[in-house]
């Protein structure tokens, strides 16, 4: 099956005359450095970082849903198509290079070359993007840090368990195994 190509042309426009950058006709954006984001997240705390990330991710998710014809169409599309658009949209926004790993039923989003080092911000961006584009309530947990950052996409309850296992020092493979075993 041919995979729909994500076309980044025109995804971001620079209105130099008005001093504005737009990621969509109604979405004005501001170019912020990754270091500044990291510093802001350090001061915002967990709640503020999550709120910021969700807002950023929802904007991307809304764009994905719009591109594919709505939330229903996103659900009907193949995984390849959705991932193509998700990775393209987040790449255009500079979040990083996104791939999806499927470990059994578990879905892990890997972000290579992330724009910032704050993994919780990235997890919230992923959560916002998937939640907004699919209309589903879901949870995320960082299960691997560094490059790539790995974010588990699961139910809110499973995500909370995964977060606790990761914070206990388990690597992402161990976290997934223990979740599968019902730990």
């Amino acid at each position, binding site marked *: 099956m041919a995979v729909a190509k994500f076309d980044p042309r025109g995804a971001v426009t620079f209105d130099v005359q008005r001093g504005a950058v737009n990621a969509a006709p109604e979405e004005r954006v501001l170019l912020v450095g990754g270091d500044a984001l990291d510093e802001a997240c350090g001061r915002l705390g967990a709640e503020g970082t999550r709120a910021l990330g969700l807002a950023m991710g929802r904007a991307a998710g809304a764009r994905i849903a719009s591109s594919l014809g709505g939330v229903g169409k996103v659900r009907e599309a193949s995984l390849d198509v959705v991932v193509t*658009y*998700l990775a393209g949209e987040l790449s255009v926004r500079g979040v990083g290079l*996104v*791939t999806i790993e499927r470990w059994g039923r578990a879905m892990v989003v890997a972000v290579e070359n992330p724009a910032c080092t704050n993994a919780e911000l990235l997890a919230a961006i992923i959560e916002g993007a998937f939640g907004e584009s699919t209309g589903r309530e879901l949870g995320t947990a960082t299960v691997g840090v560094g490059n790539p950052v790995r974010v588990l996409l699961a139910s809110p309850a499973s995500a909370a368990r995964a977060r606790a296992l990761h914070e206990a020092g388990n690597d992402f*493979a161990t976290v997934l195994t223990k979740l599968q075993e019902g730990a």
Partner: protein
Amino acid sequence: MMGAPETVARLESLLARVQKRAAEPRLQAAAAAVAVAPQPKPAKPQAEMMRPTPIAVPAARDLQKADESQVDLHAEVPPHPESSSRMAVPLQVRKPPESGKQVARAPAIPESSPEIPVSEAALETVAAASEVTRPQIIDAPVAAFVNEAAAAPERNFGNVLDDALEF
């Protein structure tokens, strides 16, 4: 005093010669010229010397003409060190309706946004990066999960997401 009469006589003779020469026309004209020569001006007070020199400005009527005809003045902008071309930026002189002052507007910028070229290679990179990755080197317990997923028939994203959220 010795020799005083001779001295007085010599002085009287000298005085007579001077008076005679002064009466000549050439010397009288020179004296008159000295009398009408311009005198050096007194130094200006310090405060006056520090007054800014007035700079010629266009008359108001000239600016009004510019307003009516919307004359564009083109200023040459020196190229940025990293730039490879020069750009002529138009400057517009306009008169605000409320006040009589003239203002120079910021350089006008073309209406359209600059085109950002996207190469085919960049598109391919995005497409390649967005493929689903199935790790090959994995721990044994997780390998079982992968086999399970590989055996499952192709389903839409909604089904896959449902599975993930039941995990």
